[in-house]
């Protein structure tokens, strides 16, 4: 039981990072980005590529991978989503699905379809015992880094003019424009933030588990699940949702590995029917 809790929470930090961007884009631009998982995977593979191919130190590779992914997100927004999203959200689902396919296929062509992982030599002790549970120190470091980057995102959104503009566009697009905010640019910046944090999630995940292009869809679905559990439109909700989802999915695969997906999705259904606003769902004021 403690094992499940500890390991689930450790993974949950990364799920939360991946879900932030998904939630942000859904809240601000009002679209479901089916290419979000592709961004996570892209970030992971780019980081691995930078570190292995060019021998860049991991921290730099992680930042490079994250920013590169953010840039990709902004490009996707400018070239594709911006032309479609005002017309029909349904269309954007299909469009971003297409983008996910293209990104994944190009990634496969460039990097191959195999699973890749980045083992880091940190010189840390292997871990310590917490009660009866062994806590690997590297996982703990990754967890800490994910919490720190979550905090950075909270500060960017909550305390800077940039973040204020994004939240203003989420609350009321028209008033934001009437206040001199460029809507298109803000959406691109939103997508950049979303991509950057998705890339970060990928960059951290690749040090713990293998990543391959075909996994993009499950990352999208998991991000979906995280924000449904945590609550749409709330960054804190995404964090809580990520941690809960980490414990839930780890517990499901630990106790009932054969029907793990059914359990996580069953929980999702319960949420959808009984608590659609999620654990920390935002009030009706900003629910889309």
């Amino acid at each position: 039981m403690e094992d499940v809790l500890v390991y689930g929470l450790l993974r949950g930090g990364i799920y939360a990072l991946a879900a932030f961007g998904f939630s942000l884009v859904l809240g601000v631009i009002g679209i479901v980005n089916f290419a979000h998982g592709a961004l996570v995977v892209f970030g992971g593979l780019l980081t691995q590529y930078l570190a292995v191919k060019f021998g860049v130190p991991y921290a730099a590779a992680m930042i490079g991978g994250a920013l590169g992914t953010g840039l990709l997100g902004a490009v996707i927004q400018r070239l594709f989503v911006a032309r479609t999203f005002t017309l029909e959200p349904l269309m954007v689902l299909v469009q971003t699905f297409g983008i996910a396919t293209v990104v994944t296929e190009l990634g496969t062509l460039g990097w191959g379809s195999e699973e890749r992982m980045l083992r880091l030599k940190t010189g840390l002790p292997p871990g310590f015992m917490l009660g009866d549970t062994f806590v690997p120190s590297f996982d703990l470091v990754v967890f800490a880094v994910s919490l720190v980057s979550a905090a950075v995102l909270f500060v960017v959104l909550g305390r800077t003019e940039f973040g204020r503009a994004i939240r203003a566009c989420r609350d009321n697009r028209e008033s934001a424009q009437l206040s001199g905010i460029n809507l298109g640019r803000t959406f691109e910046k939103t997508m950049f933030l979303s991509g950057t944090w998705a890339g970060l999630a990928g960059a951290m995940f690749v040090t713990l588990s293998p990543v391959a292009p075909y996994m993009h869809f499950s990352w999208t679905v998991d991000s979906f699940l995280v924000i449904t559990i945590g609550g749409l439109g709330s960054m804190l909700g995404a964090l809580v949702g990520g941690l809960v989802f980490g414990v839930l999915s780890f517990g499901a695969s630990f106790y009932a590995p054969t029907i793990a997906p059914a359990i996580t999705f069953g929980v999702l259904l319960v949420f959808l029917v009984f608590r659609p606003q999620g654990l920390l769902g935002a009030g009706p004021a900003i629910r889309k």
Partner: protein
Amino acid sequence: MLKVSNFRGGYRKGVAVVDGLQIDLRQSAVTSILGSNGAGKTSFLRGICGLLPWRTGEVELNGERLDRLAPHDIARLGVRMVSEGRGTFPTLTVEENLKVGGYGLSAPVLATRMEREFNRFPRLYERRGQIAGMMSGGEQQMLAIARAMMSDPRVLILDEPSQGLAPIIVDQIFDLIPRLTQEGVQVLLVEQDVGRGLEVSEQAVVIEKGRATLSGPSRELLADPRVRESFLGLS
């Protein structure tokens, strides 16, 4: 000085909701646009601000053409609109709302402007940490006006500022309008309450079905039998 000529616009190409309107703010401090529901008043304002999907004609601010600019550029050049239903940012605090109004300004300027607005609306100062969505309609209206004033606009457009407010708050808002003009902002006011709109303004335009039917100094319109009959219910 805002000048609009031969303005047509609407939500679908070719279907004009506003059809050939002219307006010239000239030296008038407050200009009101009057008309019944669905006459095209709000669409006209949205057109000036660049929010209509389709528009033709000329909009000039001190000789500078605005009609081809995006909404945020129009706002930056000094035309600010307080939309119908106020349009505050419900999850942002009062302070944050004001900061968004001064988007792009440096921190010290932002601070002095904010202080000015808090002096103008002491009520907002009391509630500066409050989430805008939790405030009363009157407070939100004040916030919306303060937010627009943060940028020191040259033209302030008020769309139905009295809508949905208690009479006492409406009085306050209308008392406020002449005071705003003392700071050099010209006000363009849309109001369904024709009597009030005429009282507060120096010149006025009456529009019906997207066209201007009457225009002139407000005092003359107030005496005009057609206005008295169809809008004021007097004879």
